[in-house]
């Protein structure tokens, strides 16, 4: 072992001697520019050159071969598209009943008189003489359509009058009219919220709002339906995040009376949370305008909150006002911004003038006859009481909401199954007792997951006997249908 080690040592020593000799050769002892050049610099220089050479080599990429024309032709021939629509199933063949007269509290279907709980005619304005008169006058003066968008001579003085009237009624500075109720929400939300902004919305909002949220490309978070604790925790989460969140626009979107469940949003709680966490509130009052509050001014009056605290209030006029279209009110800044950036306002024809004048007259009539609202409230209470002990169905809507929402006590397990049972109940009630009501059908692109139910829209024009007939009929028909399942 010793000898091996010493032999090894000797060889290394001789090798290093040789190397030093080679490096101490006179050529290597040259002095260039006053810097002593030792032989080791030669090795370093060589290494440097090798490194540069390696770095300058391109990394290996597999060669790109674009598809030849023949290959593209083959792919195009092979490709088979899906059919445009899926095959028609049995339930798609269902044709909803056709109304043969005006959609008032009583209407005619297939020649039979039925009591109508399927139209959102809350104040009974369908067929009101004053409104019909103003409509006829408007049609005679202006014709039917407005033939153009608001920017290009589609603004008729009736539109401006109607906007001013609504603003005066609600106590805001200005309002803006849209041509269609559904397009109101999905034009407003993308106008105010862009990519990167934050929107917290209730999970039970209707399709128009969902479409608006999708089009705005903002970050959307849903909170549990009407659950303030869930809303609070989400708002807390967002404000605790980084400081940048303070520069983004943040909105809460809620409906006053939810179309999908009939519940009323607790506005005082929402306003308190919004002020604490500095969010703006967009409120959809389609089903509460003209209904809630002592003079019909909506949820803000009902909860005794000044309307300035809600940043954007929208509503569709097709419900209580028995017209068509929608409006939005708020501060002047909010409304002015929409006049050029809201796509449903700028790029679409304006509301037909006769509908604007109908809405105007409806607001006038509402202000004069406040007893309609009390009558509606009484009707809702009667129907609520009568339907509270129907075997098999439960009421999930708020006792003061004009939409009475009935759900199955024991669900079948799927929304489709529920819908089938509910439709059977609705059909039976229509055939046997002439009560016309609708189930909450969902479109395939609707993301709402709330359970299905039967919707009854109560109107101020319904009489006591209509309501009694309705709940008696449900009490009778529901057990029969459920037994037959």
């Amino acid at each position, binding site marked *: 072992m010793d000898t091996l080690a010493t032999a090894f040592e000797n060889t290394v020593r001789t090798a290093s001697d040789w190397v030093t000799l080679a490096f101490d050769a006179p050529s290597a002892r040259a002095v260039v520019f006053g810097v002593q050049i030792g032989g080791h610099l030669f090795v370093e220089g060589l290494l440097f050159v090798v490194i540069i050479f390696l770095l300058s080599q391109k990394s290996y990429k597999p060669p790109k071969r674009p598809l030849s024309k023949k290959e593209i032709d083959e792919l195009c021939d092979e*490709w088979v598209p899906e059919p445009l629509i899926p095959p028609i199933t049995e339930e798609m063949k269902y044709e909803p009943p056709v109304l*043969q007269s005006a959609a008032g509290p009583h209407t005619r279907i297939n020649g039979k008189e039925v009591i109508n709980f399927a139209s959102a005619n809350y104040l009974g304005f369908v067929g009101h003489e004053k409104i019909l008169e103003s409509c006829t006058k408007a049609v005679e003066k202006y014709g039917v359509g407005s033939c153009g968008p608001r920017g290009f001579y589609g603004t*008729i003085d009736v539109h401006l009058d109607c906007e001013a009237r609504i603003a005066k009624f609600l106590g805001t500075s200005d309002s803006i009219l849209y041509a269609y109720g*559904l397009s109101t929400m999905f034009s407003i939300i993308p106008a105010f919220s862009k990519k990167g902004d934050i929107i917290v919305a209730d999970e039970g909002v209707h399709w128009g709002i969902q479409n608006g949220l999708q089009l705005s490309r903002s970050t959307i978070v849903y909170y549990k339906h009407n659950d303030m604790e869930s809303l609070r925790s989400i708002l807390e989460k967002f404000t605790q995040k980084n400081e940048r969140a303070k520069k983004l626009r943040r909105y809460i979107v809620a409906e006053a009376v939810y179309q999908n469940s009939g519940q009323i949003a607790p506005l005082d709680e929402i306003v308190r949370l919004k002020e604490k966490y500095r969010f703006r509130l967009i409120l959809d009052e389609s089903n509460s305008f003209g209904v809630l509050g002592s003079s019909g001014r909506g949820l803000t009056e009902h909860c005794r909150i000044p309307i300035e605290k809600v940043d954007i209030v929208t509503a569709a006029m097709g419900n209580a006002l028995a017209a068509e279209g929608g409006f939005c009110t708020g501060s002047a800044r909010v409304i002015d911004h929409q006049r050029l950036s809201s796509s449903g306002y700028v790029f679409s024809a304006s509301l037909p003038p006769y509908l604007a004048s109908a809405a105007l007259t409806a607001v006038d009539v509402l202000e004069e006859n406040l007893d309609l609202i009390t009558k509606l409230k009484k009707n809702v209470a009667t129907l609520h009481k009568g339907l509270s002990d129907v075997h098999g169905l439960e009421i999930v809507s708020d006792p003061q909401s004009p939409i009475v929402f009935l759900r199955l006590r024991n669900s079948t397990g799927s929304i489709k199954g529920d819908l089938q049972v509910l439709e059977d109940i609705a059909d039976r009630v229509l055939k046997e007792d002439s009560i016309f009501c609708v189930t909450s059908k969902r479109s395939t692109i609707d993301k709402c997951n709330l359970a299905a139910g039967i919707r009854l829209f109560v109107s101020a024009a319904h009489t006591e006997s209509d309501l009694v007939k309705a709940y008696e009929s449900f009490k009778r028909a529901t057990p029969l249908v459920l037994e037959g399942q």
Partner: protein
Amino acid sequence: MIKIPYLAALTTLFSYGLLFVFGQLRDFFRKIFDYWSHSKLQGYAPICLGLEDFYIRRLYLRIQDCFNRPISSPPDAWFDVVERISNDNNKTLKRTTKVSRNFPQAPAVLGLMEALQPCIPNWRSVWRIFVGKPAAVVFGMGYVTNSAILPVLIGKGGLIISDSLNHKSIINGARGSGATVRVFQHNTPYHLEKVLREQIAEGQPRTHRPWKKIIVVVEGIYSMEGELCKLPEIVAICKKSKAYVYLDEAHSVGAVGKTGRGVCELLGVDTADVDIMMGTFTKSFGSCGGYIAGSKELIKYLKYTCPAHVYATSISPPAAQQIISSIKVILGEDGSSRGAQKLARIRENCNFFRSELQKMGFEVLGDNDSPVMPIMLYNPSKIPAFSRECLKQNVAVVTVAFPATPLLLARARICISAAHTKEDLIKALEVISRVGDLIGIKYFPAEPKKQQLEETRVKFE
């Protein structure tokens, strides 16, 4: 494609640059003033950030009186425009009680503003006969029709190929559907073919799976260009590639074609080749609403699934009755030949007007037979000048700027109606010619001038 002359491009860019600089200066001073006055909304992000509404505040508000002009009579051949005054340099406008009778060049194509009887008839059958498809469904608003139909027909995994100048409602519907959207050059069938072939060969982005289905969306008459779509070539290409065709006939149904049935009739395309035909009733029928026509199964499926049908309020009865009456008039079923006369008159009117404008030297876009005629203005200062000068002489024109058109290509859009008589048109031509000379928008040499030059040359010789 529009080729902007160099001088016009330079002056337009210079004008916008100047406006931008002035706007920024005013914003700067506004920021200083706002710093001194405290706002109530501490802690809230401003509702419009930075440059988002710069265009509105600094450019649009100056010429606000040219847009949104209210009228107080039916939109017929002559109407009353309400005058507005402004006390604070156009920031707000107040209505006065004065009205001036004006002759409009705004979309009210067939002049069918008639009174009607309120009732709820069964009328889809009448519509089917008119369009030439087995079934149809109607919605309360044209914009919502596009936005609500495309998401139902196609979803993630599908491809929508749309013309680059399609209407905002189609863009909204395409975005809302979740499908991938690709654009082809405006009205260029060979580019469409190229895009289709590339996309089918490549498949879905990133996964390269084959597309579930492809829908090509085109319009019959483009509202800002007045051009007719090259439908026969596009339909042939789509048939070969097995893509579905969606035709939006907002401006063309009821206005073009021998019997008014739209661009399919005009260009000789069989309606069975177009899978989905969409249109609106606002322009030619004097009503409101939109429709979709297609095969029976398609319509049944849409009735079951489309949110605009399931949730929204339906079209109101007077509007429906107006449409039926209009169709009866157009088809001649009410016994008179008013419909045929109107169709012939609109064709005569628009061809006459277009040729006269071109002779005068204006740059007019669009094809023959199309009732939409944009006249190019380019420069931002010419927009209010043209609009106000014409209004002074009782001709109401529509001027369009950003965001409805590209920034540099502002134009005045003229829409001819069958209700315009020859005298009205000649008067309008005189006014437009005078104003055009005053403003300097005759970008092309006028023909009579050429003739005069030749005559003088001959005289000299």
